[in-house]
């Protein structure tokens, strides 16, 4: 009898391998003892808050005599999302911001990683220089760029003045405010893409490139037919990471434009902050939060399924 046959053969009634049962129970207990605390932590810190958020999204919360009163609101908060002009402006701007900024970061980050991977001397120096923006706190980035983009004495307008061009109100004009924030985000987060791409490039199998060289492949052919296909899993993971993070952008918008002028740089996180915290609408803010979580999860699922389709393994 083979091992597989043995496992398929039902045990005779009344006959039990007590040693194996005890071993199995012990293993199960050990598994729960080690896994249990982590599970309890996850439930307490992640599942319960999200469940509470979800529950609150169907309620109105008001305060009287220092105590909260929760009343059932049904789906009204979710319905209200569709007529909330700030929310629709925020959703549109967030999509534009996320895809434009991430696209810019991916292209620049890949180009920089490719360049640095070809360098034999001083690679550490270039790597250190390129990742500098990611090390700067958001509040400092806000200050740096607010000064750079200042209408009266900003470096950008000073440079324009040197070539005879008129100064422009980069953050105060509806036409250029979102573009300015996107540029700041590209500057801030390109190093993140650069680092992931560089790590990916450094782990590519060199024998394929050597074989291509022997077959007379040009640099362009090497990039197009070997590097890019081999980098697809890294590209998709980087894209997914950055898209999710870009979707949650807050600090740059808060510091540079506060969502203005008008609604031209309104983004979802800022709308959420406005409704939930400034206006203190806990129920409606929770519904908006659930909607944002759903959208981010949807983006992640799409990105991961795309990765799976490429046949990449985790």
């Amino acid at each position, binding site marked *: 009898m083979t091992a597989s046959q043995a496992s398929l053969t039902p045990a005779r009634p009344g006959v039990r391998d007590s040693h194996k049962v005890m071993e199995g129970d012990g293993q199960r207990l050990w598994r729960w003892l080690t896994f249990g605390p982590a599970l309890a932590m996850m439930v307490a810190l992640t599942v319960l808050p999200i469940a509470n958020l979800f529950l609150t999204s169907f309620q109105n919360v008001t*305060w*009287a*005599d*220092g*105590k*909260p009163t929760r009343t059932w609101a049904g789906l009204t908060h979710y319905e209200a999302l569709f007529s909330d002009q*700030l929310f629709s402006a925020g959703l549109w701007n967030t999509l534009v911001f996320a895809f434009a900024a991430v696209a810019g970061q991916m292209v620049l980050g890949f180009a920089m990683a490719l360049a640095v991977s070809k360098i034999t001397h001083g690679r550490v120096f270039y790597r250190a220089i390129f990742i500098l923006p990611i090390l700067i706190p958001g509040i400092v980035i806000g200050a740096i760029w607010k000064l750079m983009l200042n*209408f*009266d004495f900003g470096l950008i307008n000073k440079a324009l003045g040197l070539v005879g061009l008129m*100064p422009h*109100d980069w*953050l*105060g*004009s*509806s036409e250029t*405010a979102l573009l300015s924030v996107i540029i700041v985000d590209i500057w801030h987060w390109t190093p993140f893409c650069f680092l992931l791409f560089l790590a990916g490039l450094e782990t590519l199998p060199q024998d394929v490139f050597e074989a291509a060289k022997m077959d007379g492949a040009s640099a362009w052919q090497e990039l197009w037919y070997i590097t890019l296909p081999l980098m697809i899993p890294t590209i998709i993971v980087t894209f997914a990471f950055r898209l999710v993070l870009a979707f949650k952008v807050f600090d740059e918008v808060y510091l540079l*434009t*506060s*969502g*203005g*002028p*008008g*609604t*031209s740089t309104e983004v979802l996180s800022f709308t959420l902050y*406005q409704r939930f*915290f*400034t*206006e*203190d*609408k806990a129920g409606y803010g929770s519904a908006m939060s659930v909607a944002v979580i759903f959208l981010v999860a949807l983006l992640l699922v799409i990105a991961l399924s795309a990765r799976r389709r490429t046949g990449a393994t985790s």
Partner: protein
Amino acid sequence: MTFTIPRRTILKGIGAAGLGTIIPGAIRPLHAASVAPITVVINQSPWFESFRKTVEAYEAETGNKVELDVNPFAGSLEKQRNSVRASEGQYDVLIMNSGWFTEMYAGGFVEAITDIDPGFKLDPDVYTLGDTIYYNAEKKSVTNDGKLMSIPVSPLIPMLYYRGDLYKEAGLSAPKTFAELEANARKLHNPPEMYGIVQRGARGPHTVAYDFYPYLYGMGGGIFKDQSAGDYSVTLNSTEGKEALDYYIRLAKEAGHPKTAASDQAEVIQAMVTGHSAHIMMVIAAWSQMDDPNKSAIVDKVEWAPPPSAPGLPTAPGLGHWLAGISKNVPDDRKRAAVEFLRWFQTKAAQLETAKAGGIPVNAAVYKEPIAEERKYRWMKPLAEALPHAVNIYQFPEASEVIAVLEVGLNRAVAGEVPSADALNGMSDEIEKIMAGHSYKTGKLDPIK
């Protein structure tokens, strides 16, 4: 085992205890009892330094301890909400802005001062600022038939700052009407060296809306029909409202700064102190920066006037004041300690300290003191003239929702995204919806063209 204390030691102890009681009394004033330490949550504003110095004077004078928790504007509100909604509050004294004090009163988060100490007397010279220091819980109104809920900390209203030196050169006099302001601003407008006026048109927590109130109310407009009578019908898109917004935008476009739609308080003050603006409409708290040689290029050149108004109407600056209330959810000894601090803070003597430290006194008696005649304090008389006309813009706890609507709508109009009529009609619709949602008696005007 027996334990005995020698009689001499006991006598020494009694003597030391007696001295300990007498000596601190001898070196400290007796009008303030030694009380529990308190914590005050406050925002970082141009007037904060004067408050800090006043608190230091209180500590030095009484020996009582006051800890300050200093935050940005929006952060201060969040911290206050978190504290008052907890089972026991972290902060004893809440420094509340005009945009959110009613939320604290109506939510039952602030205890009436006279409930903590029935013997507390408000100094008769303290400004009641549209009676916003009172709250009638039954009527849910901010009226003086209610209980005393707070003491004013900073009676902030916007004032017109103008360049006295330029006015003198051009032979101008301080504008009383909007027409005069516009004419003077146009005359002095010479960009990019000098802007006729720099306005605070950015979207923020309470930015462009606050800048717009003196124009709106000074031209006879308003947001609601009659809040005191409980009529919250929206009148923002009235003829006067449109006239005010058109004027505000015209001033920005033709005699103002090209980036008005992105200018916040710091940038407006910066434009003035760097000598690039002939006028600003700014809270009076910024006065000390004008004459500070470390911050200003126009020391001794700025003069002040009440915000202009339409002919026949009084000046109408919107209250942007700060009030100090006592949390309900803190221990009784800390509440009593907070009352002692407020009792001291409202006095003329304490408010003189505030003025000398660069703050704005809340006690009218200070404005009659010789200090008001000094060149350094030349803003005092115009301020005292304007304060009685200050308008309490919001008398209901959901004000933050209305402010959010105004911030977006007004900013869009200033940025040129939408025409003024569309902006006013859109804001009116949204405000009416908010008020109806909270079951207030409301309504709206027909859309203006």
